[in-house]
């Protein structure tokens, strides 16, 4: 939309945030409005900045693991995995098969958590009074109970270790996951019935916030947002990290890349995650849950650097580590998907309503712990 604004006094400058109900934390958007139309939008970050990278550079490799839980606190286990993967690349550690399966199960459960919670959040942004959020959290709770049973904590799992996982599956855990997976399909059906056909939701979300696929790739957008625009780029398929090449699953692709597609892609992704989970539970082998050669105390990777990345629920989560042979990383860099996915926020929102900007932000699915680090 190209509109000439000569009289800047006509514009209403509104600061959405940092305390605002739908900025998903302490995020701030400085918006200029013409009536209710957004003509300028500048995101402001840093309210939750704690210099995670600096802390990690002053700590041992293992000590950073619990801090990764706090990056994207909705899905700590994928963060754990990304960090463990990067360190394993850096130090050349093998991961036993059983641990890989455990990681896949946990990562896909995390994806379920994230996407389910996303449904609730986006509906909250659209003004549905919390019903979807409560249903989502009800189901999320069940997965969190499983996490608590396995890792000892509901959110701050701190579970992956370099070369495996911290402890083995408790007795009966695998069966519990099986029951959960069976119960999840009906829940998704109900959720779809609740949301996807709803005319208000359709008219709110369709044709809102779309950008050409090339722009998205160039802007570094990853994850469901990119795939909603029809770009088939899922790191589980591209890098085939872990043991993802053993599972049969598909990558859902949208056509327009608007908010509606982003919602739908996440729905479809959850169904694919359920497929992966079913296969992983069936195939889970016996064996070591951690590489017996991996050391917990006094871990010093050789000199070198490594960039490891996984397909987090929000996009490409990467860790760039540089080791100088000491117990502390020389450089520890997080490639946070929610932060980089915000790059094109302004482009998506220009010319649309204030209410649209809110749901576009919601559809990017950010977590401020990761954006500000």
């Amino acid at each position: 939309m190209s509109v000439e604004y000569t009289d800047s006094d006509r514009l209403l400058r509104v600061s959405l945030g940092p305390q605002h109900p739908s900025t998903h934390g302490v995020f701030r958007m400085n918006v200029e409005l013409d009536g209710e139309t957004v003509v300028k939008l500048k995101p402001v970050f840093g309210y939750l900045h704690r210099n995670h990278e600096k802390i990690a550079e002053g700590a041992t490799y293992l000590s950073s693991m619990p801090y990764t839980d706090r990056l994207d606190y909705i899905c700590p286990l994928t963060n754990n995995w990304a960090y463990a993967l990067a360190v394993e690349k850096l130090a050349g550690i093998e991961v036993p098969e059983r641990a890989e399966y455990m990681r896949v199960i946990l990562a896909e459960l995390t994806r379920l958590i994230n996407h389910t919670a996303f449904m609730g959040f986006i509906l909250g942004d659209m003004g549905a009074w919390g019903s979807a959020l409560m249903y989502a959290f009800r189901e999320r709770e069940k997965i969190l109970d499983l996490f608590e049973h396995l890792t000892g904590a509901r959110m701050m799992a701190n579970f992956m270790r370099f070369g495996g996982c911290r402890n083995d599956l408790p007795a009966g855990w695998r069966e519990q996951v099986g029951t959960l997976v069976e119960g999840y399909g009906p829940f998704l059906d109900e959720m779809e019935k609740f949301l996807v056909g709803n005319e208000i939701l359709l008219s709110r979300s369709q044709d809102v916030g779309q950008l050409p696929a090339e722009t998205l790739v160039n802007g570094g957008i990853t994850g469901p947002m990119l795939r909603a625009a029809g770009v088939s780029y899922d790191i589980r398929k591209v890098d085939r990290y872990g043991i993802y090449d053993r599972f049969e699953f598909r990558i859902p692709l949208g056509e327009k890349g608007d908010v509606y597609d982003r919602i739908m892609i996440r729905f479809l992704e959850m169904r694919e995650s359920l497929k992966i989970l079913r296969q992983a539970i069936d195939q889970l082998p016996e064996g070591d849950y951690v590489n017996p050669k991996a050391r917990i105390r006094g871990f010093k990777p050789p000199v070198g650097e490594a960039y490891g990345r996984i397909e987090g629920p929000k996009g490409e989560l990467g860790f760039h580590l540089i080791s100088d042979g000491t117990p502390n990383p020389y450089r520890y860099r997080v490639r946070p998907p929610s932060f980089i996915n915000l790059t094109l926020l302004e482009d998506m929102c220009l010319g649309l309503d204030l209410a649209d900007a809110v749901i576009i932000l919601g559809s990017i699915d950010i977590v401020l712990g990761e954006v500000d680090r």
Partner: protein
Amino acid sequence: MSKDNIPLWSPEHLPLLPQRLVEMILANLGAPEWLVSISGFMVAASTVLAVFMTAFALLSLIERKTLARAQNRIGPNRAGWFGILQPVADGIKMLTKEDIVPARAVKLLHLLAPILIVLPAILALGVIPYGREWTPVPLELGLLFFFAVGSMTELSVFMAGWASGSKFPMLGAMRAISQMVSYELPLIITALGVVMVSGTLSLPEIVQQQGGGFWHWNVCTPWGIVAGLLFYVCTIAEANRCPFDLPEGESEIVAGHMTEYSGFKYALFFMGEYLGLFAIAGLFVTLFLGGWQAPLPGLGLVPTWLWFFGKLALVIFSYLWIRATFPRLRIDQLMRFAWLCMIPMALLTLPAAAIWHYMGRGPLSWMVVLPLVLVPWVLVAVIFNKRLAPATRTYRFADG
């Protein structure tokens, strides 16, 4: 039936009891006529106020409980039995909170706005017939009075938004004005159909004409069902309820016109909103659902005001249910819906009502009027599907 003949304690006349007691006592004390009538009037007004204040308190709890249940929660259950004392706790909290006035606010208007939002709601409640014998102020032009008073609400909402001297309230006020003005039109037009058929603006008279079973209610006529539906949607919009709660729009503009209010002024906004909700839902019941009329003849033993409040409760419950389910519309969609769908459809009910009025109730008029209102609906449905309906989509899957 003259006043003296009716038994004092009949359930039908229970709501009038305080008024009649006061009048009787005063008359026996030999008070002058004017004092008796004024006192009686004030007591009658207080009765209505007391009833609806209680209902407001109850609704604030019931709304939270209902929403909670719809969301698989329990809702407030700590204050008293089933949380019955929660409204009291809320009231005390609101009263004891600090009242913050923004530095750039227009102080006088900022103070007046919450008062002015309660006032019209109370006034409007005065003209609604709650029972056969219970109409606080049986005005000849009751409907006109209702709308005249009801449109004051817009003014106070805008006053609140403007006087706050802040941006979110301003945006909320802008939204409120455009929304309420737009939805007032179909609201009044559909009510006009009822007026045409009934031939009166007096609300008790309109209810009286709907007697004799639910098939006599206005909503059970071919034009009435359309008008009633439109009216219902408009009441939601007028009451700023979800999915038309844009003036508050808590996910976008924080709390709209109420953003800069706190303490008791905020509570007054809530009270005004709930009382307005009772008034507008009461009007809907009166105009279309037969007011205090029993749904079936032969239910004369039940006091009529119970029927009214039962219907009111149902209508309000439907509001709650909708609130638990729907997302909010966007402002342009809301306006388009009002001007492109609601108003033309509302206008169409007028000729339909006119034809119905002149042809009288009967199978023939059903056959004439029904197509008149049905055809536009089908047209809208088709157009909606062809043009306006959001596209259905298919999704590809990549295997690699």
